[in-house]
């Protein structure tokens, strides 16, 4: 057994909408209660020490755990970020702020960024819940009035926690609840040494979740391969001609559904808008009802030729040679 009995979680909202929090409550296997009560002994002992939306305390008392974590008195803790990180230097020019969380002993405001800087030094790992914390999301949409960015841009892509763990992004707007729950459980198991660090793609997304595109994961992909396209909303075919960005978005929601298997964007007839991607909500993901750039489809079609030929030829060959299974 690992010697680490307790793992604390500090959930810090920046320029957030609380959607990833609500989405975490959508998770069933594991659920947020599973996480907090320990669904397997190796994942037990997780305490949610700060989460302003659901915690009992308020004001200064609510911040006790955050203040302790900043001083290094809450060990070890996983820092979960929700929301983008603004550029406070822009607001400072007129003597103001973009985002404040609490006050110091003298009653002066403490910005989200100040807290983030202090917490990052002591965190065992940083997990970014959602596209805003990962890449800036809508707050960083052009022309990005508050200078918002995601953690990998704020701290730098080479940043590592004091345990040597890079920032882990769980994008999605909001992130899928079970993606978050799985990654948090994974982080707990990794901090305790039960699992290796998850393999990440170049955008710091765990490959075991974000390894395929929404298009590859789409139940309507077979209809697309069959040349069946929807031309009006409501039709049951491929949504590509109505704006689906599935081929350029990394997501398993079409296959997995959104809540306990229910939902899934293109799979029920609405175009994917690419909400897991670094460029969201700008081009090429918006306008959301505009078609994805055609070169992706040309590339995909050309790319599929050898496989399509193999699928046909393999069967012909079998018939010609009369080979038994």
């Amino acid at each position, binding site marked *: 057994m690992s010697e680490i009995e307790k793992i604390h979680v500090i959930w810090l909202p920046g320029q957030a909408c609380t959607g990833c929090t609500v989405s975490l409550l959508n998770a069933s296997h594991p659920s947020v209660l599973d996480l907090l009560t320990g669904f397997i002994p190796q994942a037990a002992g997780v305490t949610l020490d700060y989460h302003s939306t659901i915690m009992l305390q308020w004001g200064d008392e609510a911040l006790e755990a955050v203040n302790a974590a900043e001083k290094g008195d809450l060990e070890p803790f996983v820092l979960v970020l929700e929301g983008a990180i603004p550029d406070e230097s822009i607001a400072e020019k007129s003597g103001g702020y973009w985002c404040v969380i609490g006050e110091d002993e003298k009653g002066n405001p403490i910005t989200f960024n100040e807290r983030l800087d202090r917490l990052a030094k002591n965190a065992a790992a940083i997990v970014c819940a959602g596209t805003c914390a990962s890449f800036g999301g809508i707050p960083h949409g052009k022309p990005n009035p508050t200078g918002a960015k995601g953690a990998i841009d704020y701290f730098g892509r080479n940043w590592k926690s004091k345990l040597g763990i890079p920032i882990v992004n769980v994008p999605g707007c*909001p992130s899928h609840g079970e993606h978050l729950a799985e990654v948090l459980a994974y982080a707990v198991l990794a901090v305790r040494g039960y699992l290796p660090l998850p393999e990440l793609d170049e955008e710091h997304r765990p490959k075991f979740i974000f390894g395929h595109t929404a298009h590859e994961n789409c139940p309507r992909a077979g209809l697309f391969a069959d040349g069946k396209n929807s031309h009006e909303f409501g039709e049951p075919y491929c949504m590509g001609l109505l704006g689906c960005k599935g081929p350029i978005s990394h997501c398993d929601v079409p296959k997995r559904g959104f809540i306990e298997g229910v939902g899934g964007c293109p799979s*029920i*007839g609405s175009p994917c808008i690419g909400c897991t991607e670094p460029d969201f909500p700008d081009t090429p993901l918006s306008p959301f009802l505009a078609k994805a750039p055609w070169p992706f489809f040309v590339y995909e079609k050309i790319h599929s030729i050898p496989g399509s030929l193999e699928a046909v030829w393999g069967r012909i060959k079998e018939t010609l040679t009369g080979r038994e299974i």
Partner: protein
Amino acid sequence: MTQQEITVEPMSRIEGHLGIQAVADTEKKTYVEAHSFGTMFRGWEVILKNREPADAIWITQRTCGVCPTPHGIAAAMAVDMAYQAPPPEMGILLRNFLLGAEQLYDAALGCFILEGPDYSQSVVERSNPKWWEAAQNEKAPHSDIHGYSTIADIMTGLNPISGGLWVRSLGVEKLARKMAALIGAKHPHVNTLVPGGVALTLTPTVLEQYAAMLSQQVAFAKEFIPLFDDLLDFVLSMGYDDAGLRKTNLLSYGAYDDPSAYTAKYEDLSDWGLKRRVSPGIVIKGEMITQDLVEINVGVREFVDRSYYDDWAGSYINEDPMGNPIDEKHPWNKETLPAPGAYKAWDSKYSWGSSPRWVDWKKRVDGFPHTLEAGPVARMWVTAKAKNVPESTGSSLKYILPKATIVGYRVADEMEFEWKIPEKINTVERVRARAHYYAFSAYVVYGQLLQALDLFKHGKARVWNKYSKPSKGFGVGLIEAMRGALAHWVVMRNKRIANYQIMTPSTWNAGPRISDIDLGPYEDAIIGTPLTESDEITGVDVVRTIRSFDPCLACCIQVYKGDEKILHIPEV
């Protein structure tokens, strides 16, 4: 010294970043001053500017992950109007089902997760030991229905994480969001709303699954509402009448459109507003003065005297299509010019929130601007008074929820509900209205589900109408979010967004004062609230009062207009 100042920052168990400063008079045992300040800003509007108008349907939902769907619907309605793209009847009903699913989840979230813990054993035993003592001996009047023997048992059930009610409500809320995902692809941030209807492949499976999940909500309502009535009546009996008390100045835009009335035309706005299942209306000093959505829209103003924004000049629209004057302080003409300023500068600007007011421009009362309160209590009040719907008696809303036999639920038979217009609008009645609105939402959506089955039977299953987008136009989307009246305004030029404005219920409720005699609703509600804590002042009475409004700050503070000045744009 008899005055003690407290600051609650961060305000927890709400959506977003809010701070409250309050001053208690410890001798008179009451709060005498308060300031409400929003402490986070993102800048939605400059991001929306120059984008495709339809993109607002997706982008504006992301102002708030707790209440995204009404944003999506308000945006869809505003864009329907700008594009002249009315949806087919089934499309309108499916939008209502999305709204209903969200209101079920959000009402339960508010009562059990956000506000409920303020009345839980963990808080009450520490802050109000006398209440706790009384609660242990107070039998819950409806214990035969909900199964909780004493008020103390209910309070223990509301303890976060360990409480049975708290945990159970999480499951019910998830199920309601699953209903939203069934029609909306996901929740938060539903993906199927499009101009002219919804983007959903509708099959009988969808309606059947929705109905099955709705049954479970109906079954839950029959325990939830009597349980909250018991708890809240007890709190009132402890002398909590004056907590959060405000005069009865209310705003409701109404919700749940009649599929045969909604045309997306501004000229028909008054008509389809009156045919909504939840009624629109403005109440001033306890009198309903109008139910006309055109009159209501024209009277809206937004002020930034105490907010971190510069004032604006200029306008997009001088009059609406019916010739009514559109003021330069009306959101269609608003420019948001942020100017980040000092923290807690009470004498000047101190909040990222702004101060909406409604001007009685037809001089029905006095012709002045009024501070209105939005929320479930406002729309229930208006709907109960107006008699626009059969359930409205003029003093109450009376209706019957159907049978629902669900394993693990105590009441299978149909049950009658009645929400009566309260004498006072206070902390307790805001929470009670939220609980009752859960049941009323389930009732309304149940009725409309039967309508949808009938449409399906008659082959009217189209979910979307094709449209051809004009190059210019404008629109307004008025609806009830969980927290109250929500409006979106769009001005379209050259097929792009020239101006987009959002005014949320929390913009109305959380806003700072305009002057020292014209306070925001939160501030007004705290002043006069009794101080019930005996020793240490944690501010429990303040947080209870603020949470009774169910604040949603990310929603409330979303707008920004960059340095670029808009040159004069010709009128519509």
